[in-house]
């Protein structure tokens, strides 16, 4: 039963394998360039398992200790996972102990597959979800650690590899942009952050920016929602 589910799950994860091999290695290299040993990407990719936040965590590790900002940052960057959870409430029901791992490891990519995949009737759904989650996390952890270790050996000039994080957010931002009917929220995110950066400086602009974003989105709920209703 498990082997069958694994065989059914693996083909669905191949695109993720490609993506994670590249991003995970880049992340691993980034941790190496930032002066962190392989234990750091190993810990972060295992315990956090959320690409964007893990990149940001590296920046946090290199900045002064700021636990409240770290928690707020984690909650805000990962807030979208709450909505994945809402979408998966029924699918993950009655999965026994596996359920805890399924929820633990529900990154964007795993959610996308488990939410949309057509699972054959004769394959156990629970184990299918489980192997998709496990395979995806394995790709990520292995790539991240490999990237970090290779960074110590290869004599390649990788100055500037940290830009992969900026490029990744530009692409995610655009993907989000393509999905939106109105772009008020995206503009708010950019404009408020730039303003707060100018006013508060690079080390303390995030919390004011996050508060202003939540406040503005709350005040502008009508125009933003009005935009979404129009097809």
């Amino acid at each position, binding site marked *: 039963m498990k082997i069958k589910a694994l065989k059914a799950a693996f083909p669905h994860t191949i695109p993720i394998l490609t993506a994670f091999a590249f991003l995970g290695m880049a992340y691993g290299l980034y941790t190496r360039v930032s002066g962190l040993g392989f234990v750091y990407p190993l810990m972060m990719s295992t315990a956090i398992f959320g690409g*964007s936040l893990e990149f940001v965590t590296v920046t946090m590790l290199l900045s002064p200790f700021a636990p409240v900002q770290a928690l707020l940052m984690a909650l805000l960057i990962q807030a979208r996972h709450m909505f994945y959870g809402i979408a998966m409430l029924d699918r993950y029901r009655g999965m026994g102990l596996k359920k805890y791992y399924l929820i633990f490891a529900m990154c964007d990519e795993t959610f996308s597959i488990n939410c949309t995949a057509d699972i054959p009737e004769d394959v156990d759904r629970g184990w299918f979800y489980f192997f998709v989650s496990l395979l995806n996390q394995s790709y990520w952890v292995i790539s991240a650690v490999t990237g970090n270790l290779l960074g110590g050996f290869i004599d390649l000039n990788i*100055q500037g590899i940290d830009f992969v994080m900026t490029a990744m957010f530009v692409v995610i931002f655009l993907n989000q942009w393509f999905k939106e009917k109105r772009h008020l929220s995206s503009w708010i995110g950019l404009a408020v952050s730039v303003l707060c950066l100018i006013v508060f400086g690079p080390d303390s602009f*995030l919390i004011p920016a996050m508060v202003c974003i939540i406040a503005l989105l709350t005040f502008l709920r009508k125009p933003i929602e009005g935009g979404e209703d129009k097809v």
Partner: protein
Amino acid sequence: MTLFQQILTIAICAIGTMTTRFLPFIVFFRGEETPKYIQYLGKALPGAIFGMLIVYCLKNVSVLTYSYGLPELIGIAVTAVLHIWKRKTLLSIAAGTAVYMLLIQFVF
């Protein structure tokens, strides 16, 4: 940052992540309807968050001193144009990063 503070920072990020992943299953385990305001934030927040994250990545770029943020601007432009044109996530990220690396290693 001390080693203990580093471990704590990683733990906090993990706890924050797990809070967002487990919360719906804890709050809505009976299948009650999600409050409208939360549903709204779920739709509206991502755009703003990713905009904020781009700015966060660029927070230490100085536009008033050499190289005036030009490598970053060009790198982002390449990433964005390629992505709007081809919509291939990995290609856009790889090309933008490669251009940026070449720029800061050989040009600026």
